């Protein structure tokens, strides 16, 4: 299967038992760095960030049947929504949420020092800011507000006097570019 050719949305919608595994693996590979970085920037602890990222993908896998594709970028938005929820839930409980990891019988990844350092680097705001600075200005502002400052689409739209739909599109495009940039950097 050429999973690489498929959109994120199609990867999430793949249900054929022969295709679902490779498709979800491809989705994971595409967004691992961004989701790990999302958590690392917030918790400043690579081990916790790794656990939160693993739980994020476990929740995405467990609840993929609820995903509704409503346009390009909807899968990324959905993943970020889950990541934010996992983070909030963990902060509320003061412990790393790992219900879905347990339910799906997924093991916590064992990490050595080099891997922990690599995760720490994903939270390097300077790297993100450098990658951000390479984005076109219209995408840069919305991605900064969405990824670094946790603003909602409605907030971003209000601040920039654009429509929420436009904000969503710019965030999606910007995140795609940012992902490529960060992958190349690492």
């Amino acid at each position, binding site marked *: *299967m*050429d*999973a690489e050719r*498929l*959109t994120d*949305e*199609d990867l999430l*919608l*793949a*249900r*054929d*038992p*022969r*295709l*679902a*595994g*490779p*498709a*979800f*693996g491809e989705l*994971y*590979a595409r967004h*691992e*760095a961004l989701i*790990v970085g999302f958590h690392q920037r917030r918790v400043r602890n690579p081990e916790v960030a*790794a656990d939160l990222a*693993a739980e994020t*993908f*476990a929740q995405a*896998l*467990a*609840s993929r*049947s*609820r995903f*509704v*594709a*409503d*346009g*390009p970028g909807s899968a990324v*938005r*959905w993943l970020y*929504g*889950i990541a*934010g*929820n996992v983070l*909030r839930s963990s902060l*509320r409980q003061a412990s790393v949420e790992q219900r879905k990891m347990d339910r*799906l*019988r997924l093991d916590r*990844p*064992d*990490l050595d020092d080099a*891997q922990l350092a690599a*995760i720490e680097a*994903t939270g390097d705001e300077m790297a993100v800011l450098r990658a951000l600075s390479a984005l076109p200005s219209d995408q840069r502002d919305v991605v900064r507000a969405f990824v670094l400052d946790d603003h*909602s689409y*409605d*907030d971003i739209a209000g601040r920039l006097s654009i429509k929420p739909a436009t904000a969503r599109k710019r965030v999606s495009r910007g995140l795609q570019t940012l992902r490529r940039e960060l*992958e190349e950097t*690492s």
Partner: protein
Amino acid sequence: MTALLPGFRDQLEIRATELAREDADWLASEESTLLAALEADGELPSPGADEDADRVPVYVPHAGRGDRGPRPKRRRRLHGRGLALAIVASLLGASGVAVAAQQILWSPPLGNERSGRAKASATEVPADMLRAFAVMRRPQTDVDRGAGSRFALTMNGKGSVIRTNGVRRLATGLGGGAIVLVPFERQEGGLMAALRKTSRDGPLKPGEKLPTVVVRDQVCVSYLDGYTGAGVACEGLDGLLKGKLSLGLGFDACVTPESRRNFARMQAQERQLAADEGRSPVETTCSRRKGDMQQFTFGLVPDGVAAVKFSRSPNGVELPVSSNVWQSAGGGAFGPKVWLDADGNELSKKLADTKARLGIKG
């Protein structure tokens, strides 16, 4: 690029495969249970009836003609509820089709044991939606209430209130499954809807649960074949009028007899269209090798849209619209760029223009 969480991708792939297998087994068992129950009730549509539903007329009529959609080619014997509905509909006449359909509430099994039971509602689909979509105005048929729709309705869960009399089987998708339209009176939004609300209203207090977000008057299209994939997409009136209701799915092209038949049908349709227009037909490739994943996309467009194009190029392929639905044997397209009327003229996709064209106020 080196993986940040070593081995985790492999774990996810294995579990994703296992879960998909469990889902497929569950779907297959649900389907066979449902089909057996329908067969026992004598409610399964005959093969001829399915052909009627699946035939692919090229153009839908213009709005404002009070058209009630394609008429079955053959007369079929009606029985049970279908006969009662037909009598009520004929008594009330053409303009009362939607009203007539509300007189008897279709009550198929809704929901499932996993996600809870949904409820049926006898309320009418909003008038503006009826005005904009001929497929919703036409009477509900036995085929609409057939196995494909019943199967789709079992996929809705607790918190959904479904206007069952508005359910329509729109077409057979290119993967061989049914494309079904389901109007909802009420749906409880999922986690994302709740999170959007919290992002707007501020973070949750300690111990506070995520709020339940209720969405009203949405229409969903679902695709299910229990073999290659399933998906659902929903929109409210404005989204529907903008043509935003679309869904992209992957399937194994030409592996199942149904998908082979549907590809052949789409190709025949394309050849006919090309001959009518004096151009060379665009041939769609169709692999018979298992595991070759193809994609198809479909979507709903309002009345008056007879064909759609994904490119503004003069050589762009026109896809015909049938029962307000277009289908494309390709992926990645979340909506056509161009709408064409029956004369090949481009229609504006602006919401205000579409509302004006269809006589919808507000």
